[in-house]
């Protein structure tokens, strides 16, 4: 029964999205266009996050490790790997 409540809740969330962005008022082909655009943008954001967030975190970690260490003549070497 939790699946049914979950589905109702998701449907209700989808309705809220439709009302807020006025896609409730659009004709079907406009809706297709709008959702395609939104899903493409979302996908690109997630893909970029997947690629770059680990690198950014490891770089930030190295940077903070070098700052905390007591060697004064250490040069800041940042390793970029692909």
């Amino acid at each position, binding site marked *: 029964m939790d699946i049914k409540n979950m589905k109702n809740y998701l449907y*209700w969330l989808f*309705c*809220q999205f*439709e*009302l*807020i*962005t*006025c*896609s*409730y*008022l*659009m*004709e079907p082909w*406009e809706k297709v266009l*709008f959702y395609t655009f939104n899903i493409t943008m979302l996908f690109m954001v997630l893909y970029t996050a997947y690629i770059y967030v680990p690198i950014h975190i490891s770089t930030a970690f190295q940077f903070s490790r070098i700052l905390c260490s007591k060697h004064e003549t250490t040069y800041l070497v940042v390793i970029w790997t692909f």
Partner: protein
Amino acid sequence: MANPNAVCNGHLHHHHHQKQNNLLKSGIYKKNGITKGMKKNGVSNGTLYKKTFIEHFEQAPMYVAVLTFLGFGVGTIFGYLRDFMRAWGLEKRHIAAEREQQKDFVPLYQDFENFYTRNLYMRIRDNWNRPICSVPGPQFDLMERVTDDYNWTFRFTGRIIKNVINMGSYNYLGFAETDVNALKTVTIELQKYGTGVCSTRQEMGTLDKHVELEKLVAKFLGVEDAMVFGMGFATNSMNIPALVGKGCLILSDELNHTSLVLGARLSGATIRIFKHNNMQSLEKLLRDAIIYGQPRSHRAWRKIIILVEGIYSMEGSIVRLPEIVSLKKKYKAYLYLDEAHSIGAVGASGRGVVEYFGMNPDDVDVLMGTFTKSFGAAGGYIAGKKDLVDFLRTHSHSAVYATSMCPPVAEQIIRAMKCLMGQDGTTQGLQRVRQLEKNTRYFRRRLHEMGFIIYGNDDSPVVPLLLYMPGKIGAFARRMLEKNIGVVVVGFPATPITESRARFCVSAAHTREMLDTVLNALDELGDFLQLKYSRYSKASHPELYEETRLELED
């Protein structure tokens, strides 16, 4: 209990406290460290208001405004897209266009001006202009219509939706009825006079019915004389030019009705606008007008007239009449009060805002009102001193050129007014006024408790419920119709762009069950559409806690 003063707009809160502080300084003083208590109900003498004046104009949380603009942004982008497609022939044009041979001429139809109408209004157009096919009482019958091409054209299926609860008609006292006994005198007059008058007041259109009606209106309002006109809108727009002209100053409220604005513009006088119901703004304008005079010559103004309404139909707020009257007396200006929505609807015996505040009708120079709303008829009146009305009888444009009121309609007003005054031998009129007051209070209280944002005064039967987002306007009206309730929703040109609303008009003819049906539907719909934006609501189901509260108090 939530403190009602907490939700008042800044000015009222400040103003109320100022008045109370002045009282403490002057009359009521400390004795042995104990302040003399003020009366519990209302305010003591020395202030202008005999009962508390509570108005709500709560602002929604910030995210609501952001999301509203987001919705309008998406709508605008798609509007541009559709216009582009229409301009390049990718889509059929449904709007008016010039002929091929005239394409090089000066354009007749400027495409961009109606951008909003074409792209946003058309999508939800099925919620307006719905044809009804019965009397607009507390319930009515609706003709069902469907659209095949997204609201550009409609067709009727032939089915009739029966007994839709009517929350949109201005039927405040319930006089829009088809009961044969009630309409007996109207039928007699219809058979005696027919329907048409075929003349203007000054030619051959003044009937004995008009004279009788004018005497009755004057007696009802407590003034010397009155004059009636065939149409309420025309009463304003045709009589203000007769009263003021060039060299006069009109101070008009920000949210005045189009008929007042049109009449003011037609008159040729200078118009200055003060903020809605804001007495500081009005006083500043009055002082500037008297100090600086007319714009270039600095002569004194020939006349200064203040145009206000009794109840503002989009906000549900009531005018601050005592303060305006004291201002007008101090600065020697004239007051024109348009009681279109308030006559019959407020006041202990239905005589309008003048009675609601307990004031003398002689204080208002021109009392104007309409018979469309509370009396179930059509037409308007202007009442006041005899000199004023005699002047209007000769100089009003409406008297010279417009057809006068037709006799059966005049008889309907006469019977409704006699019922209100108690002259037909029953207490039905007073009962209706009391019922309207009870219904208004109940409806507003329940809506506040549920957590909706409602504008306006606690005593006004016009209840605007704020919707804010453009997508919800269409969804709200359609779903309410599915539940068999007819509502009126209002959007951009009539209201500010972020504050679209649904406007309910409570009627004395609504029974408790009808109001409860509507309130339950609103509750459900409010949860589904997330319309409960208020931050000051009480618990959503107070009756669940009633019993436990009683037990704890013991």
